[in-house]
C-alpha cells in the first residue's frame, strides 16, 4: 500500500506513538524539577511570587502528566503487539526494565502525586515540599529505567545469548551499559532545557501583555538563567555522547557526518555543514564543508579520521539522509538556544531583559524549540541504530510482528486520528491554562475534599470552554 511494507509501517507507527509520548514525560521531568525549585525558594524566602508560580505551573504539570499516562499505556503494549520478535528474544532484559519503570510510576502516582497536587493546606508545608521533591525524583527514576533499556539496545552488555535469546548475565552491566551514563545526562538536560524554553515563552507571553507582571518577570528571568547555564553543559555532554557513539556505533556517526569514505589525499576530515546525501550514489551532493572541523570535533586532533560508511556492507547502513538531517536540526537548534541564552545575559546586563519586546517575541516564538531539538536528537539516535534493534545483534526486520500491511495501515490511521483528537483537546486546554494570569492562582483541594488525589488532570480546574 503506497509502496510501504509492513516493516516500514510498524516503524512509522512506533516512531509516531513514541514521539508523541516522549514529549509529555520530558515535559513532566523538567517541570517537576522546576516546581521543586519554586517551592523550595518559596519556603526559603517566603516570597509569595514563588508560591503563585508554583500554583500556576502545577496545574499545567497535572495536564502534562495525565497526557503522559494516557499515551504511555499504548507504549507498554506496543512492544508486544508490533515487535514480538524483539519482545520474545530480549524480554528477559528489556521487559524487566520496563516493569520496573511501571512499578516506579505506579508507586509515585499512587502516593506522592496526590499529596503534591491536592495536599496543599492539608499537610504541613515541609511534607508537601517533600512530596514535590519525591515526584521530581520519581520522574527522574522513571526516565532512568527507560533509558537503561534504550541504552542497552544501543550498546548491549551484561547478557549471554542462549538459544537465540538474550538472557541476563550481570544486571549491573546491563543497567550501566556503555552508552547509558551519556544518554541519561543528555536526555535529562534536554528535558530541563525544553521546559526552560516553555517557561521562558510563557513568561514572555505574559510580559508582552503586561511588563509589570511580577510573576512573569520572575519566570522569564529564571528561565533565561537556566538556559544560559544548561546549554553550554548540554553541548559538552552532547560532544561526549557523540564520542561514546563513535566508540560503540561508528556507522551511526558516519551517517551523522555524511561521511562515506576517507580521501587519502586529504589531511583531516572536513565537517559537512550542508549536503544532500544519496545512499544510491554513496556520496553527498551540494556539499558545503569546513576543512578539519570533523577531525577536531570527533578526534580532538587536526588529522584524525573515522571510518566511512563504505567500510560497512550496504545492508548495515542506516537511513543516511534522515540521520544526517535530524542531527543537523538538533545541533542547529542547540546553537540557536545557546544564542538565546547569551542574548538574555546581555540584555540583563544592560537592564533591558524585561523591556526588550523583540527579545520577548523571540522567546515566545522559540517556546517549542527545545522539544523539536529533543525529537530530532531521538530520531538521530534511533534511526542511526538501524538496521538493528539490538545493535549488532538483532535486526529490526527480525524483530517485527508478522502483521499484514492492511492491519498495520488500519491501526496507524486509528492512532493518528485518536491522537489528533485527544491531544488536540489536551493542548487546547493547556493553552487556556497558560493564558490565565500567573498572579491569580488559588490553591486546589485535597483527599476527601472537593478535589481528589488519583486523577492528575483534575488538579487543573479551568473550564474547558468559555462560559456562556
Amino acid at each position, binding site marked *: 500500500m503506497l509502496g510501504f511494507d509492513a516493516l516500514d509501517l510498524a516503524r512509522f507507527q512506533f516512531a509516531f506513538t513514541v514521539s508523541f509520548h516522549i514529549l509529555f514525560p520530558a515535559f513532566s521531568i523538567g517541570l517537576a524539577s522546576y516546581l521543586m525549585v519554586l517551592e523550595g525558594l518559596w519556603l526559603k524566602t517566603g516570597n509569595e511570587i514563588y508560591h503563585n508560580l508554583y500554583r500556576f505551573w502545577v496545574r499545567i504539570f497535572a495536564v502534562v502528566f495525565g497526557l503522559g499516562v494516557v499515551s504511555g499505556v499504548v507504549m507498554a503494549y506496543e512492544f508486544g503487539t508490533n515487535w514480538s520478535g524483539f519482545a520474545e528474544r530480549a524480554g528477559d532484559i528489556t521487559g524487566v526494565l520496563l*516493569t520496573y519503570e511501571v512499578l516506579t510510576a505506579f508507586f509515585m502516582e499512587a502516593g506522592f502525586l496526590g499529596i503534591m497536587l491536592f495536599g496543599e493546606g492539608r499537610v504541613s508545608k515541609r511534607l508537601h515540599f517533600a512530596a514535590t521533591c519525591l515526584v521530581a525524583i520519581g520522574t527522574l527514576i522513571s526516565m532512568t529505567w527507560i533509558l537503561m533499556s534504550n541504552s542497552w539496545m544501543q550498546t548491549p552488555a551484561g547478557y549471554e545469548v542462549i538459544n537465540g535469546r538474550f538472557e541476563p548475565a550481570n544486571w549491573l552491566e546491563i543497567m550501566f551499559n556503555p552508552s547509558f551514563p551519556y544518554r541519561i545526562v543528555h536526555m535529562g538536560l534536554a528535558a530541563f532545557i525544553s521546559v526552560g524554553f516553555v517557561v521562558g515563552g510563557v513568561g514572555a507571553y505574559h510580559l508582552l501583555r503586561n511588563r509589570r507582571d511580577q510573576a512573569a518577570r520572575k519566570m522569564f528571568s529564571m528561565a533565561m538563567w537556566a538556559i544560559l547555564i544548561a546549554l553550554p553543559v548540554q553541548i559538552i555532554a552532547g560532544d561526549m555522547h557523540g564520542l561514546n557513539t563513535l566508540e560503540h556505533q561508528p556507522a551511526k556517526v558516519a551517517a551523522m557526518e555524511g561521511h562515506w569514505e576517507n580521501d587519502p589525499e586529504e589531511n583531516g576530515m572536513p565537517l559537512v555543514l550542508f549536503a544532500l546525501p544519496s545512499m544510491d550514489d554513496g556520496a553527498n551532493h551540494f556539499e558545503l564543508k569546513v576543512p578539519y572541523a570533523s577531525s577536531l570535533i570527533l578526534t580532538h586532533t587536526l588529522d584524525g579520521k573515522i571510518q566511512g560508511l563504505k567500510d560497512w556492507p550496504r545492508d548495515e547502513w542506516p537511513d543516511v539522509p534522515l540521520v544526517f538531517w535530524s542531527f543537523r536540526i538538533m545541533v542547529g537548534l542547540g546553537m540557536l538556544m545557546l544564542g538565546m541564552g547569551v542574548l538574555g545575559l546581555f540584555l540583563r546586563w544592560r537592564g533591558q531583559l524585561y523591556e526588550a519586546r523583540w527579545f520577548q517575541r523571540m522567546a515566545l516564538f522559540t517556546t517549542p524549540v527545545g522539544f523539536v531539538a529533543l525529537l530530532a536528537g531521538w530520531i538521530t539516535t534511533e534511526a542511526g541504530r538501524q538496521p538493528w534493534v539490538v545493535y549488532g545483534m538483532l535486526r529490526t526486520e527480525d524483530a517485527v510482528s508478522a502483521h499484514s500491511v492492511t492491519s498495520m495501515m488500519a491501526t496507524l490511521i486509528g492512532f493518528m486520528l485518536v491522537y489528533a483528537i485527544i491531544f488536540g483537546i489536551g493542548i487546547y486546554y493547556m493553552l487556556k491554562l497558560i493564558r490565565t494570569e500567573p498572579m491569580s492562582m488559588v490553591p486546589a483541594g485535597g483527599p476527601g475534599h472537593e478535589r481528589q488525589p*488519583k486523577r492528575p488532570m483534575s488538579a487543573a480546574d479551568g473550564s474547558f*470552554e468559555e462560559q456562556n
Partner: protein
Amino acid sequence: MTIDLPVIWYLLIGFAVAMYVMMDGFSLGVGILFPFIRGDEKRDVMMNTVAPVWDGNQTWMILGGAGLYGAFPLAYSVILPALYLPLILMLLALIFRGIAFEFRFKSNRSRKWFDLAFSGGAMVATFSQGVVLGGIINGLAVSERAYQGGTFDWFSPFALFTGVALMAGYALLGAGWLIMKTEGELQQRFYQLARPLTLLLVTAMIVISIWTPLSNGRIAERWFTFPNIAWFAPVPILVALFSWSIWNDVTHAHERRLFFKVLGLFFLGLSGLVISFFPLIIPPDITLWDASSARASQSFLIVGYVILVPIVLAYTAYSYYVFRGKVRHGEGYH
C-alpha cells in the same frame, strides 16, 4: 527446596489481572450503564462515584502487561500480536474513556461528546477485552516461539460471545457498585437492572462452561477426570449460591453486600479459568514454564514487585476509605 519462581510469577500476574478485572470492571461498568440513565445530573453522580479511583484501577492493566513482558516474554510476544486488532481497539477506547473523565466536568456545550466518549469507550474496551479472553481460551497457533496464525484467528462466534458476556458482567459489577454508592431514585434504577444483569451473566457463564469443553477436547478431559473434577465441582455450586444471594439482596435492599457478591462471581469465573488452564499460559500447548524468562530476570524483578506493590495496595485501600459513602449531586470530585 528450590522455589518455583515461574509459578509465583504466574500468581503475581494473575493477581494484577484479577485486580484489574474487578476494579476497572466496575469503572467500565458505570460507562456501560450510561445509556440506561438519562439526565446530566444523574450521570454526573455516576461518574463521580468512580472519578477518584479509576486511574489507579487502570494502572493494574499496565502492570499486568509489563509484568507479562518481563516474566513471561513468550506469552507477551504471542498473545499481543495474535489479538492485535482487539487489543489496539481496546487501547484506543480506553484513551477516550480516560480523557472523558478529565474533560467532561470542565465542559458544558461539548458535554454530550464526552458522554459518548465515556460510554462508548467503556463499551468498546469491555467488548474487546472479552474478545481477547475468548481468543485466548480458543487457543493460539504457536510454533518456533512465535505466533503463526492470521490476523483474524481470534474472530469466532465464541470470542464474540465472551465479548458480550463480559459487557453483561461489567455492567452488573457497575450496577452493584452504583447501588452501594448512590441513593434514592437513581439507586432504585440500578436495583431494577441488577436482576436481569445477573441472569444474563449467569446464563453467559453457563453457556461458556458448556461451549468450552465441547469445542476443546483437552479441557473436557481436564474437567471430567479425577481429581480435577473435585477441584472444579465447588465452582458451579458457589456460582449458583452467589447468584441466588444477589437475587435476595435486591429483594431486601442489601445495598452493600450485593457488590461484594458480584465481585465473588467474578473471582469464581477467574478461578474457573485458572483451574481449567493451569499450568497453561497460552492454550493449547504452552505452559508457564515454557514461557518464563530467565531465572535471573524473574528473581531480579520480584524484589521490586514485593516491595512496591504492597505499598500501592495500602494506599489504594486508604483512598477507597477516604472516598467511602454515598455520592450526591453537587459533591463533585472533579
